[in-house]
């Protein structure tokens, strides 16, 4: 199982029946593959649809039907299409049960940075700031470290996406929960030792007496 699959499978365990969920572009999109059998999860794409399905067969694509990354999608029976004000009313108005977002950094207070690297990369926040401010639960799905550099840090060095702490961080090494007392290590990836996680994390991390392996 590669790093992305570990993350996607573990995040999918956070899904609950009959909920509205937004998946960010990239790695978070993979979570949709692992919805537990029999569970009804309505996925929203912030460009304006709830209830989208896989890319249609070649030649069947509709230029008026894409996901937030611009990729062609299909609409499932019962789908709902809407404008951008409605889309973000769903996100900000307490209707979005969970969002899964990628991350560049998370700090000891649980704050997320994921929209720009000053002087290097300015992507823009897109819908991320609204999602972190408004979704009931915010799950960050990211690699634990990037090219040997820690991404879970004492204090953000990149501009924050929101002042609000995220709910959970899932990486290829660990599940970490931000709490008012700081970051707590909840689970470790299969075969990964606590020491390995600590070595790849520069933020202070509380380690409980037992840290179970992720059950994938």
């Amino acid at each position, binding site marked *: 199982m590669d790093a992305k699959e570990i993350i996607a499978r573990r995040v999918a365990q956070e899904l609950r029946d009959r909920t509205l969920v937004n998946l960010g572009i990239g790695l978070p999109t993979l979570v949709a593959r692992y919805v537990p059998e029999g569970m009804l999860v309505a996925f929203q*794409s*912030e*460009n*304006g*649809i709830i209830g989208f399905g896989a890319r249609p067969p070649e030649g069947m694509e*509709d*230029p*008026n*039907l*894409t*996901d*937030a*990354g*611009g990729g062609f999608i299909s*609409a499932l029976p019962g789908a709902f*299409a*809407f*404008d*951008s*004000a409605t*889309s*973000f009313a769903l*996100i*900000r108005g307490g209707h979005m049960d969970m969002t899964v977002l990628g991350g560049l950094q998370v700090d000891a207070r649980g704050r997320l940075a994921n929209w720009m690297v000053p002087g290097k*990369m*300015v*992507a*823009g*926040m*897109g*819908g*991320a*700031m*609204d999602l972190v*401010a*408004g979704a009931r639960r915010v799950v960050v799905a990211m690699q634990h470290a990037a090219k040997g550099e820690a991404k879970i840090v004492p204090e953000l060095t990149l*501009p*924050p*996406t*929101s*002042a*609000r702490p995220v709910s959970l961080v899932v990486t290829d090494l660990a599940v970490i929960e931000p709490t008012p007392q700081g970051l707590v290590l909840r689970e470790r990836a299969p075969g990964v030792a606590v020491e390995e996680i600590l070595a790849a994390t520069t933020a202070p991390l509380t380690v409980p007496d037992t840290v179970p392996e992720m059950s994938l």
Partner: protein
Amino acid sequence: MSTQRKALTPEQAAALVPDGATVMIGGFLGVGSPRRVIDALVARGAKGLTVIGNDTGRPELGIGKLVVAGCVSKVIVSHIGTNPVTQQKMMAGEIAVELVPQGTLAERIRAGGAGLGGILTPTGVGTTVAEGKQVLTVDGRDYLLEKPLRADVALLHCYEADYYANLTYRLTAQNFNPLMAMAADTVIAEPDEVVPIGVIPPDHVRTPGILVTHLVERPH
């Protein structure tokens, strides 16, 4: 009830957008963007536009074409990550970029079209977006005061238009279009289809024709 009107060619529509104008352009990564009018603006060599839209598309797509062609001096958008040319021009000081959270952008445009003095949103509190903005505390929670946006011209894409220019939108191609239809002095709509009056049931009309200043002809 609006009267029947003559459809414009994309070139005629582009001629109604003065250089230096503030222009709202519908679309999300080019989906729901008025592609024929954008091409005509590029062909005309429009200059100094301030463009309000969700993103700057890709270099060969949507608003991205206007950026690449040098038609744009400023963009007010939520995302430029899919168009490296926007980033290059921003770094070179050739284009000003105001980044706005997507939901805030939608509500600022809605406010502009709804006669509101602004909106209060929790989005952006404690971030660089809050710089220079008023923070108001309502029932113990902090909100940013975000001001309304309006434009000289809105360039929309729609699915159907009837002869009155009543408009419908399709699936994820609606995005910002119905909001922008309310927020500009001149509203130009580019349809995929033109249908006789009565074909669109009143409940399905999303933008009433009386708000649409000009309709572009259907694609040939």
